[in-house]
């Protein structure tokens, strides 16, 4: 074990997590072409991720494309089987359970997808879309019709519009339908996979407000997967930052944004454009060089070292050797929250203005 599961647990939360992951690993085989399709490599999509989502809390999982955040979300829902590691719902392991048991669990764990155009069956009217989860679990009769109207109202849509098809709604409205569908079975946890990324800002704000209201009203817990740090700062209580399949830093949102300890988080936070010309001009950006390495062949030791400004500019060769040889654990190194960097600390003076 290179990582203590408790590391990601918030100090303030005493309640046991409603959804937790321990040492999740997911490798996707890379196959050769041809008939035999031999496995020629492994994409290390997720490598030893542990997470805790507390009841009524929003935990954001952030990172750039290809960092494994969406794969982690799907592992948490058991939509794809993990290579190793396990997921716990309400203290019970859900990995490796029987189909029937998983079907029951599915009711408590639901997902909202990114693309409101692709996530709704275009051939079904909205009332049928919302009835689908109820029918699957044999909960449509009695009272299904009333429940569908109630759901539409819950997400701020007109219950009279049940006969319309998805294409007759705008993007924001479709995303509301997706949320309504996820709520149909009265889940306790929603996994939100980039739920507002495809929406225009003026529409996005309404959906964010809706998610906040629903959490208050229904006592939901959210695992909010996003690349948009502005939205994450607004909606999440805690954040976990992923890079190349690993969590590199996690902690309460305000702490993490105010004093990011990992060089990657520092670069990420500094790169987010701010809609404020004065601040934007005054800000000092940490521009990373290079691109994310190939996940089929990740760097040894710390996976960020190939792009890390600290590694390149500040470390002595013997310090660099540590980064190359050993993967840093996700532990608190005196920053108030855990970071997976041997040299974690406030943004170094040479890099800031």
């Amino acid at each position, binding site marked *: 074990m290179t990582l203590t599961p408790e590391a990601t647990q918030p100090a303030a939360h005493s309640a046991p997590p409603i959804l937790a992951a321990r040492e999740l690993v997911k490798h996707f085989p890379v196959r050769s072409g041809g008939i035999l399709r031999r496995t020629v490599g492994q994409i290390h999509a997720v490598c030893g991720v542990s997470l805790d989502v507390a009841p009524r809390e929003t935990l954001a999982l952030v990172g750039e494309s290809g960092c494994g955040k969406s794969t982690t979300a799907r592992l948490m829902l058991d939509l794809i089987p993990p290579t190793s590691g396990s997921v716990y719902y309400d203290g019970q392991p859900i990995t490796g359970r029987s189909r029937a048991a998983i079907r029951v669990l*599915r009711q408590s764990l639901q*997902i909202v997808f990114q693309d409101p155009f*692709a*996530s709704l069956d275009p051939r079904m009217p909205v009332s049928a879309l919302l009835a*689908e989860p109820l029918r699957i679990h044999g909960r449509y009769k009695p009272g299904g019709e009333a429940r569908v109207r109630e759901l539409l109202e819950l997400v701020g849509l007109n219950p009279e519009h049940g006969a319309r098809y998805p294409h007759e709604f705008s993007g924001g409205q479709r995303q509301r339908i997706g949320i309504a569908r996820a709520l149909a*079975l009265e889940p306790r946890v929603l996994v939100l996979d980039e739920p507002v990324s495809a929406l225009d800002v003026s529409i996005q704000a309404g959906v964010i407000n809706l998610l906040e209201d629903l959490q208050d009203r229904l006592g939901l817990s959210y695992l909010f997967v996003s690349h948009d740090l502005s939205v994450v700062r607004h909606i999440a209580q805690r954040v976990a930052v992923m890079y190349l399949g690993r969590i590199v830093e996690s902690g309460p949102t305000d702490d993490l944004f105010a004093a990011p300890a990992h060089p990657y988080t520092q670069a990420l936070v500094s790169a987010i454009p701010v809609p404020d010309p004065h601040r934007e001009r005054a800000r000092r950006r940490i521009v990373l060089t290079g691109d994310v390495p190939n996940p089929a062949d990740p760097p040894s030791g710390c996976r960020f070292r190939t792009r890390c400004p600290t590694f390149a500019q500040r470390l002595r060769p013997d310090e660099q050797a540590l980064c190359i040889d050993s993967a840093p654990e996700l532990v608190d190194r005196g920053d108030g929250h855990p970071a997976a960097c041997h040299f974690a600390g406030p943004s170094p003076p040479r890099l800031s203005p």
Partner: protein
Amino acid sequence: MADLQPGLAAPPPVAAEAITTQQRNQARMAARRFLRHRLAVTSLVLFVLVVAFAFLGPLLWSYDHTVDRAIPASTPPSMAHPFGTTTAGQDVMGQVMRGTQQSLKVALTVALISTTVGSLWGAVAGLYGGWVDNLMMRFVDVILVVPLLVLVTAMAGNVRGGTSWWAVALVISAFIWTGTSRVVRGVVLSLREQEFIEACRAMGASNSRIVLRHLIPNAAGPIIVAGTLAVAFAILAEAALSFLGFGIQPPDTSLGLLIENARAAPFTRPWLFYPPGVFIVLIALTINFVGDGMRDALDPRQTMTRR
């Protein structure tokens, strides 16, 4: 500050003025979309007339497809015999009625069997992927390389005197469902990557539910196209089989058989050739246009759906 904005004092218009839109019956919407398709409606009317001609015609017409000594041999179309008569003394209209009847039975049965089997086969292969897909599609490949006509010629030797129309339909179906299955598999391969299928899984939907309620309805367009092509193909295939001595044999007849018999006649006795020919074209074309209309009618994304 609030008194500065004239609009702020007014209460925001909310749910109170919501307009009640009528619950729209899905089947009715589909029917309306179909009726909008003028060519499809015309084709449907024509097709129904062809069916009526084939199945009700014999009840009203005084001649059937068999040889009758009262019929003069080889006369061009007249009032008594609108499509003329054959050298052997058969009424061509009576023949076309019977032939259309037999061909329609074969063609529609083929369309039904091949689309059902092909769609399910393709959808299952596409949805499961991996070795299941590999196995199922290799089986399809094996069928594709077996030459239909050679096999049938071999079989024909054992069935003297022909077989019934449904045996013909089964044999043709056994070969052409593979085309549908390949088309449907292709569509499903792209559909299953879409989030709404993943959404179904997340809700706990079973695979059979995903196939029947989500994949096949969304592949309806290509399935209908494959079905209409199957109709045209089946009529022609049936003719070929009859020629090889398998399937419908004289004295019974089919459209393909009639054309086959009139092979030498187009210039000398055109009435023998053109009536069955026109009916084949008519069936193939009208089915095609009806299929187009159905495809549009079943797609809710077609415009004109708002209120």
